[in-house]
């Protein structure tokens, strides 16, 4: 699975750009996920200062995935990347229970953002390869995801490291982009 296969699953409308935004706390695994999607080496990853972007283009149709650094200091810049977002992917370190509250707060603030209103959200309960990882159901409950009424949402357990669950999540992303464009 790669970015190109995701692009192919999306209904193509020429000259259009699909924009996927990856957000979440630092050390959640956003860059690993991005590199996994782009089939790149994930062993030399460093903390993201600023942002990373990967793009694929096919028949005039473009998919951009934006991975924005998660450290507190640069979270105020997140809003600069909201515009025209088709799907928000929120990445959580399922093993870092101490920061569940913090990550929940950040997500809640994102869902209140006007520029992101109605944008489908996929929550990746990442790092399921770790023994201490909380299951997706527990995270969904902790984040009160079931109270979200104003958009479609999904939680998907995954391991960006091994790639497990990533494909399922991305299939959901494609489906919701296509549904929105009908």
């Amino acid at each position: 699975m790669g970015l190109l296969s995701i692009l192919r699953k999306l209904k193509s409308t020429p000259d259009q750009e699909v924009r996927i935004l990856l957000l979440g706390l630092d050390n959640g695994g956003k860059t690993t996920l991005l590199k996994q999607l782009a089939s790149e080496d994930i062993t030399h990853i460093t903390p993201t200062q600023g942002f990373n972007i990967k793009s694929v283009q096919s028949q005039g149709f473009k998919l951009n995935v934006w991975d924005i650094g998660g450290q507190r200091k640069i979270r105020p810049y997140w809003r600069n990347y909201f515009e025209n977002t088709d799907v928000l992917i929120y990445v959580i370190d399922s093993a870092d229970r101490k920061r569940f509250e913090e990550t929940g707060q950040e997500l809640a603030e994102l869902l209140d953002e006007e520029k992101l209103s109605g944008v489908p959200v996929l929550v990746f309960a990442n790092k399921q390869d770790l023994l201490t990882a909380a299951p997706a159901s527990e995270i969904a409950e902790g984040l009160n995801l079931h109270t979200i009424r104003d958009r479609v949402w999904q939680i998907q357990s995954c391991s960006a490291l091994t790639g497990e669950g990533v494909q399922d999540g991305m299939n959901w992303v494609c489906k919701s982009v296509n549904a929105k464009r009908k």
Partner: protein
Amino acid sequence: MRTNTNHFRATRLLRMLGYIWQCFYSSCLRFWLKWFLRLVTGRCELQRICARCKAGALRTAQIEYSLKCSKSKVLRAALSLKENDLDEHLAQIIQEKRIKEQKDPTFKVNLRQCLLQINGYSELFEEVEDLRKQVFDSENEEHENMLLKLWDLLMPSEKLESRVTKQWGNIGFQGEDPKTDFRGMGMLGLTNLLFFSENHPDAARQVLSHASHPRLGYSYAIVGINLTEMAYSLMKSDALKPHFYNTVSGKPQMQHFHHFYCYLAYEFDKFWLEEEPESIMEFNRYREKFHDKVKGQLQKPEVKLIMTVDQEK
């Protein structure tokens, strides 16, 4: 349109001719040229390189290329030697190439130095790779002490209130516990950061003060770990060879890698301030620009990337 097609054809033809020439040269001409030169000068290619080029990247890189292209197994094997086998192998080369040592007394010393540099580079890379693969472990006392020492060196006037604290943000870690920030660079990242602060405390603090600037600032430690990645990948791709061949006359050691990191940390800071980026979000763009600049410098055969401290204005 027509000229475009013609132009395209011409470039393709030129490229093809270049390719044919290269094949012809490496498969046949190079051999006869060497044979002829050997006959006229009475010296083999290795000897000619040593006589023609002064010590450093120019000589060592040409020796390396000559050994790599050699038809002789003994010569090719000289590129993957352990230090202990070096002298024995040197004697084998001299025998294989029927070199008369009395006629060219400096040759052996010179070739030995080249082999030390060539093989030392790959050995050093293995060491660097081992250190990178070592994950920072908060249960490991040595790792913990290194981290605390980094704090003390960078922030001599401020005590850490506890091991897990927001204060780490003051030296540019992301959260309250730096342990998650080393990622794919592992202990190599921490060792680099610590080496810079230990060996150039004033310069490191000067860079940290620039990094703390409200408008032009950046996360000192995180950027440092990104620069470790830069140094590492430059070494991995062999781009660092000319620098090491020019600056270390024998086998390069770990400290030489750390010194190169210091160069990057110091120079990147200057570069960042000169470029005046709009915000920290532009980091990767300027990182690439800086990377290209360093790669360009590394292509010059005489390159030496040594950190030199400017007087603070």
